[in-house]
């Protein structure tokens, strides 16, 4: 597989996530790009290694293509008449930034469990008392991505 096809697959994964709120499966990649199952698996593994997206440990299913999450989380984003799940507080605003779309965000306060509602309209976030806390220094973010 040549270098450009890796990036074509990466672009397709993001387009698929944006359009459907979920990532494509390996067999969908194989069909779309006329690859064998093994070639599609290999491409997913390579893109995982390059941090283009991240696979569920022990599988060939995409878990995260930041800012999108393939699994339900406590960071819910309503945008473009769809409901997406973000990986973290930052990615909650990352989804409307990536989609260039207005969004309503429902997330949980990590201490109280209370709902935090945020609104992005016309490329502006409406005022809120909410804060985001980053625990881990940037240089350590990729040590354990699911913890991050």
């Amino acid at each position, binding site marked *: 597989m040549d270098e450009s096809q890796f*990036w*074509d697959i*990466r*672009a397709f994964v*993001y*387009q698929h996530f*944006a359009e459907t709120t979920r990532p494509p499966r390996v067999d969908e990649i194989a069909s779309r790009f006329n690859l064998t199952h093994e070639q599609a698996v290999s491409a997913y593994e390579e893109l995982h290694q*390059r*941090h*283009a997206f991240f696979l569920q440990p022990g599988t060939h299913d995409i878990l995260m293509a*930041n*800012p999108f999450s393939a699994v339900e989380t406590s960071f819910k984003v309503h945008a473009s008449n769809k409901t997406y799940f973000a990986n*973290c*507080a*930052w*990615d*909650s*605003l*990352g*989804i*409307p*930034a*990536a*989609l*260039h779309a207005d969004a309503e965000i429902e*997330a*949980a*306060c*990590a*201490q*109280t469990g*209370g709902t*935090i509602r*945020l609104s*992005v309209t016309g*490329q*502006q*976030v409406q*005022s*809120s*008392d*909410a*804060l*985001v*806390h*980053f*625990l*881990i*220094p*940037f*240089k350590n*973010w990729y040590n354990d991505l699911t*913890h*991050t």
Partner: protein
Amino acid sequence: MNMLFFQSEEVLNNWLTSNHVERGAVMTMPQLWELSQRWYHNRLSPEFHGRTAEQVQQIFRELGLTSEFWQAS
């Protein structure tokens, strides 16, 4: 665990105390939105192939994130 929302500064301080963790970096929503736009605005583009550590550091510098917390190495 790393990037979490809190309803207020007081609530955040309660969380830090109850979890026995040190304060990291804190942003308001306008600051987080600015970072999100800078970080993710071209994520759906086929031309986006990731960033080097230097490119990441440049983004943080442009947003005034220059403390040790935001250093790539």
